[in-house]
């Protein structure tokens, strides 16, 4: 099973689309880390990162924008392409149980994006240390990488799920990108709208009520949970969600899409 997964991962890793996405990943992940590690950086509200963990937290926006997008683009046709060209029918007729084939698909697609992103994250940490002379503690670095891997896994599974539902490539990509767009860009609008409807002081980033409302609503978004995981390593962050709450949310965000994907695969008709 692992052999198949890594063969798939290798194929995707050296695919043309990965070559196209690599410069984007380079720009967004080590590029952002380099920028935020600038000792003379001017951020809104006079925020200045006080340590490497905070710098890496700010750089996590690169994962949210480029990493997750790359995961979606890698996996969006994981099933629909095989369905279109007839190979899915051959796969589904094989004796290997479908849940194991599903695990192969998930691990294969996920590792193909997880490998370069992990590498770029380590490069980012080195860049931050080099440029600001602040080195990220090992525990924070582990949480930082694990959280990034989890958010990539969630998006990979979303994309595969969308790919299994879509009958052709166009729908698959529209579904996957739509989901990415919702959680990455529209979520702010959604949060603001709900906060306004609940009478929270929208727009006041210092308003504790708004921060707590936003923090709790973020549990419904993979990017939000990702940031909650990172915030467990930051001091003085109070957004209404405990570290345990963030871990439980991450667990739920891992289990539910995996379950849905496996359920879908068991009922899949070519």
């Amino acid at each position, binding site marked *: *099973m692992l*052999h*198949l997964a890594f*063969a798939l991962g290798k*194929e995707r890793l050296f*695919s043309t689309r990965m070559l196209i996405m690599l410069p984007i990943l380079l720009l967004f992940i080590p590029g952002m880390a380099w920028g935020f590690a600038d000792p003379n950086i001017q951020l809104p509200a006079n925020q200045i990162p006080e340590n490497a963990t905070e710098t890496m937290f700010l750089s996590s926006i690169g994962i949210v924008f480029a990493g997750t997008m790359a995961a979606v683009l890698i996996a969006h046709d994981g099933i629909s392409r095989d369905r279109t*060209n*007839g*190979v899915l*029918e*051959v*796969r*589904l*007729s*094989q*004796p*290997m*149980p479908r849940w194991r*084939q599903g695990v192969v698909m998930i691990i294969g697609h996920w590792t193909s994006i997880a490998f370069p992103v992990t590498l770029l994250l380590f490069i980012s940490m080195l860049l931050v240390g080099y440029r600001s002379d602040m080195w990220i503690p090992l525990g924070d670095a582990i949480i930082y990488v694990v959280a990034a891997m989890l958010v990539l896994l969630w998006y990979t599974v979303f994309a595969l799920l969308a790919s299994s539902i879509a009958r052709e490539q166009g729908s698959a990509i529209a579904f996957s990108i739509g989901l990415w767009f919702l959680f990455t860009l529209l979520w702010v609008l959604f949060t603001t709208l709900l906060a306004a409807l609940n009478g929270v002081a929208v727009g006041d980033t210092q308003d504790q009520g708004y921060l707590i409302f936003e923090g709790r609503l973020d549990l419904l978004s993979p990017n939000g949970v990702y940031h909650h995981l990172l915030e467990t390593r930051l001091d003085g962050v109070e957004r209404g969600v405990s570290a345990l709450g963030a871990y439980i949310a991450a667990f739920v965000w891992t289990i539910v899409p995996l379950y849905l994907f496996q359920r879908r695969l068991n009922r899949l*008709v*070519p």
Partner: protein
Amino acid sequence: MGDDIAMQFSAIGFRHSIPKPTWYNPLKKGKGAGITHVDLAITKGEIIGLVGTNGAGKTTLLRMISGILPLEEGNVSQAGMELDVRALRSMVGFMPEQVRWSSQQTIRQTMTEFAHLRGCSVQSALDVLSLVGLRNRIDASLDSLSQGMRQRLSLAVALLGTPEILVLDEPFNGMDPVATDAFKRLLRSLADKGISIIISSHHLIELDLLADTIALLHRGQLLAHGTTESLQSSLGFEQMTELVLDKMIPESLAKTLNILDYVDAANEHRYVIESGRHDLLETLIEKKFQISTWRVVPPTLIELLCAATGLDRETIGMDVEQSSMIPLRTIGGEEE
């Protein structure tokens, strides 16, 4: 007889889900066309030709036999033991219609991948390539393969793990005549080794020559299954005689004949009549007809299908849409 049965499908059924939106549930699905109550006994080493019009349910039935679609009704057994879907998949090799193998992956990598999925050794998977004539292209990328080679690769994948039953959906599509001939010989040699083969094909002449038995499928039902002779007899088919004459049979004589087919070609009149009219031969000779052909002709597969369904050629050809919508046999239970 029982020992010769490779697999027995009893009263199997499956119906496709189709969208049936309502104003309160636009995503609602209901039961559509499919397969109902099919009983099929597959004998070891037998080549079964599956014949039916478009939409008759051939591909659905083949997918059910291959374990891709679940058996919503009925069961499958071997030597009296009921088989689960995993056992079924391990015994059946499936070659779907027109797999467009395409990627930078090589044939070697593809076979290795499917050897893992099938649970057989990589070496045995590569050995299968010799059987289908792809050994010398082992390191070619899938993108570089012609349609015929893709068909061969599909067959190679279907042959992995030495299946007991080989299920082939339109295997001759995209193959040149030489490859088709080699393919047929390969199938015959596999059948001689005890592998049962089920073929669905629109190349009816090829199928007629290759298949040991014919299964006639229409509107999701298996109407008949047997050798051409047994089908002929069970369907009450009269033997037919083809005769080619230099001039038309006079109307007075033609009225006494049951003319099944007539073609007026240049200087030739081709008739197909019911056999058993030996007196006709004498009459024609007396009347100085020049008879260039007089032979008994077996019914074609289309004629057998027409006889089994009770429909004529034109109707059966135009029956595609209805066949996928209206089951001949009443299906138990309420329509969703």
